[in-house]
């Protein structure tokens, strides 16, 4: 996506409908968004989806937002590894 502000709640929910057990949203560090508020909007939307997933009963902890500089491959790897290890505790998507 050109900016994380293009992340819409529906995209994240559709990932879970398609069977995803976890979703991570990687956004620019705060204060560095070239469009000023993009990552802040993404944060609000991810928070909203967390709330929705709690209400649905799947668990909002399955979707998370992380701030990460552009090109930080090792950082991204670390986040994905952590998410995979969290899934051992969370289990697969109960709505898959």
């Amino acid at each position, binding site marked *: 996506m050109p900016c994380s502000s293009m992340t*819409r*709640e*529906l995209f994240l*929910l*559709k990932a*879970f*409908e398609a069977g995803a057990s976890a979703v991570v949203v990687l956004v620019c560090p705060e204060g560095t968004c070239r469009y000023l508020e993009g990552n802040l909007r993404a944060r609000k939307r991810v928070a909203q989806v967390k709330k*929705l*997933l709690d*209400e*649905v*009963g*799947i668990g909002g902890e399955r979707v998370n937002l992380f701030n990460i500089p552009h090109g930080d491959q090792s950082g991204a790897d670390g986040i994905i590894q952590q998410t995979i290890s969290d899934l051992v505790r969370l289990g697969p998507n*109960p*709505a*898959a």
Partner: protein
Amino acid sequence: MIVGQQKPFAEIKASVHPYSKLLILGCGTCVKTCFAGGEDEVAILASCLRLAFRKDGQIITIDELTVERQCEDEFLKEAAPKIAQTEAVLSLACGAGVQMVASRYAGTPVLPGVNTTFIGILEKQGLFTEECSGCGNCVLGDFHAICPLSRCAKKLLNGPCGGSQNGKCEVNRETDCAWQLIIDRAKAFGQLDKLATYVPPKDWRTSYAGGPRKLVREDLVI
């Protein structure tokens, strides 16, 4: 606009639970503007319901459609084919739209998905405030375009109650005192003396307290 808020998810899920085929019908006007029942909200709600029912091991088919306005036949008729194929309609329109659907498609159960709240404005992004009560006899001209019926907690037409502090209402400290706003505006226009003009007691027959209202425009009836 008419401002509404989507009902809690648990309440909606419980209300559609008996049905295996559901149409979520959105409205593209007021409820879309307040992010309660437009196309995006329909899609999000449909996705959440599918996930919730799948998690419970229940099969439900959910169809989605948003029309421009549910309160007008010209737009609502577009929903006819999908309504014919469903067991129930979950309408995300305001109360008027929900009832229109029920009236035009009497054989299909219609459920509300939105709590209709008030006639208001978008004060700033994310904040909607009540401005109008729909009293049917607008007196904004007497009060410098600040409505004491909808914006004064006590609905006082005669003047301030005297309980406000620092311009805030004594009933709700987060609310601006409507009479403070009226007086400030009258002063700004140099028309403070106009507030001394006698205003007769309000005729409430035009408001909702007088029962369901109707408006007929003979010039438009063919």
